[in-house]
């Protein structure tokens, strides 16, 4: 009689551990090669998104390199970061493409919560956390399906982070590959915004920042 709950439990545990969900299955969670590299950067009280650019490699960064013009602390000595694109208004993802998202925090623990995608991951200062996401429906499709022309995907903060935790948000948009490229082109790459020069105009290796 007492064995019945145990058997039911073992069945639930076993069938759950057999599942193919990438997030739950250690083998399947290795991201697809070539998946789009994106960084979600969290700070009190806003989100910043960094796209890896043409080389699909996110440039190195360090909190010691943070300045007003370089809010993510990208290392100007690392050429892979030159084509990175930093965006503060919208998180745009192309539909049907896997994005591998790296998460960094500037100050305290935050949590990137995307409820419509059933995705969430803590953003912890001092380490990199990751999750992968493959959007299946564009924002337009959702607006039609939900019968709500004002629908938008959202990125929320879901770990208490201070006074304005409740309004730390970013709009998320899912569109076609073309719409995405078109949108991305309107933003400048890191090297354009932050050329590796000393403020007095002479060329420098850019590694000495305050």
């Amino acid at each position: 009689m007492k064995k019945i709950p145990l058997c039911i439990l073992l069945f639930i545990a076993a069938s759950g551990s057999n599942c193919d969900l990438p997030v739950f299955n250690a083998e399947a969670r290795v991201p697809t090669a070539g998946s789009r590299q994106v960084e979600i950067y969290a700070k009190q009280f806003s989100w910043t998104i960094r796209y890896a650019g043409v080389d699909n490699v996110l440039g190195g960064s360090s909190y010691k390199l943070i300045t007003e013009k370089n809010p993510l602390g990208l290392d100007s000595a690392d050429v892979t970061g030159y084509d990175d694109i930093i965006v503060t208004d919208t998180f745009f993802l192309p539909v049907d493409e896997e994005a591998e998202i790296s998460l960094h925090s500037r100050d305290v623990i935050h949590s990137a919560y995307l409820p419509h995608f059933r995705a969430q991951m803590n953003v912890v200062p001092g380490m990199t956390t990751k999750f992968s996401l493959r959007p299946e429906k564009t924002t337009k499709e959702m607006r039609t399906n939900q019968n709500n022309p004002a629908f938008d995907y959202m990125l929320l903060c879901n770990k208490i982070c201070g006074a304005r935790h409740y309004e730390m948000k970013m709009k998320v948009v899912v569109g076609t590959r073309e719409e995405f490229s078109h949108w991305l082109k309107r933003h400048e790459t890191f090297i354009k915004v932050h050329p590796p020069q000393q403020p007095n105009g002479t060329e420098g290796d850019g590694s000495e920042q305050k």
Partner: protein
Amino acid sequence: MATDMHAHSELHAQTLEHDAHVHHGHDDHDHHETFISKYVFSMDHKTISRQFLVTAVIMACIAMIMSIVFRLQLAWPGEKFAFINAIMGDKWGKDGVLDPNAYLALVTIHGTIMVFMVLTGGLSGTFANLLIPYQIGARDMASGFLNMLSYWFFLLSSVIMVISLFIQDGAASAGWTIYPPLSALPEAMPGSGAGMTLWLVSMSAFIVSSLLGGLNYIITVLNMRTKGMKMTRLPLTIWALFVTAILGVLSFPVLFSCALLLIFDRSFGTSFYLSDIYIGGHPLDQTGGSPILFEHLFWFLGHPEVYIIILPALGLTSEVISVNARKPIFGYRAMITSILAIGFLSFIVWGHHMFLTGMNPFLGSVFVFTTLLIAIPSAVKAFNYITTLWKGNIQFTPAMLFAIALVSTFISGGVTGIILADSALDINIHDTYFVVAHFHIVMGVSAILGMLAGVYHWFPKLFLRHMNKNMGYIHFWITFICAYGVFFPMHFLGLAGVPRRYYQNTAFPMFDNLQDINVLITWFAIIGALGQLVFLFNFFYSMFRGPKSVQNPYNANTLEWTTPMAHTHGNWPGALPEVHRWPYDYSKPGEEKDFIPQTVPLRAGEEDGGAHHA
């Protein structure tokens, strides 16, 4: 000192000869007792239990008022309330609107007070002190002095926590879980300054209190049981309080180490929890640490803590249900095994609070498994309560209603735990109102219901009088209905993605049509809070003017009902009772009366029920 010698000779005599020292005369005092030594710095377990109870009731009122303040803000964000200005003052409740930093301070201190002061100090502190010496047949705890210290450290920690509310920059506000770096850096939020320091001081005192109490309870249960009181003749209340004390002694020191490292990071420049931080316009020096270390240390206590809270409530429920159903508790041995299993398993599930910290999913699945396992002994207990009620001769006292209600909330809150235990499902509901609903129903409401069952049932032992029954019924129904009314709708908010610790939900259009649910919740909260006034009046009035009780008002079997109806130092004037049977001989087949106290010897040929009632 005379008192110490008296206490020492007590223990000595008791462990050697149980009935040979009648001349010790415990109702007249060998040592001179003043008002201070009798009622204030008392070393008598009965007085100490009352002190714990009254302090916990006051702290619960403070925490509940806080919850009404923040529920008003959640239901009607930005609206002006004179009540908010009255409670919070002009700085934090300017124009009757709650300040966002103050909101976070309220939820933090509400959680801290409820989890620690009310449900640990108020449950364990009150009932372990009241029931352990009584129900095992001892004159007092092993060390009356340490016991007294345990209460005074508890009071000290409560007072410091309340003082922290008046700090200029605000009380601790990083959630009751106080994760660093938010709780380590005053630049991150104002409450992480002096308010957080006082929180840490208060909690250090609280941990001392818990450890002193817990050690006492363990030693007393093991060493001071009266003749014939085998471990398998102990009431389940004692088993529950005993295992709870063991859990506390093993886990509170880890919380202390966790807090100590945080104190170091805050004040001495260390980097246990801090690395790679840029805040306040400059990078911090600390490198190499990790906030995840804090989470591990915190939850290593945090999870056993919730069982430290619920086990005493379950133990009290076993007693109240059995007495008021006039039936032995079903599955006495299984109940003991379940308590032990819950105690053991509670140490290997803590990672389920950390599924989303970037943990390897395989490790996550290990914690999923252990967390699902712990549901089994919990379910065994729930089944056993229900089976005990089945075909019982049920006496519907207010205590019984609260005990039965605990079975209801323990089950409904417990099943959402199964959902949260699954690390895949947790992704979408972690840190949302689904979690708030779960832990309030399974732990908050259930433990409070158990505590109230205990207060109503043992009021005659606490205060020699009865509480008013009709007020008890009114209090019960308001509490039970409003508890579900407040917390059940929160499941839907959580599934819809509403996060915890949000000052308001107005920043997200997707939550607009859920605002009515918040209004409903707040109304239930207000009515529920007002309903507690009935209890408060009943409790304090009956203490002095309630109808006097007889010695054994419920015809119960356990030893506390064999003591005189006057507070007797040493509990039994004359010899200690001798125990011959287990405590659950209710409606024993073939017996004339429907109860047989533990002190009644077995007749020739009669078997002890505990021998084969598994």
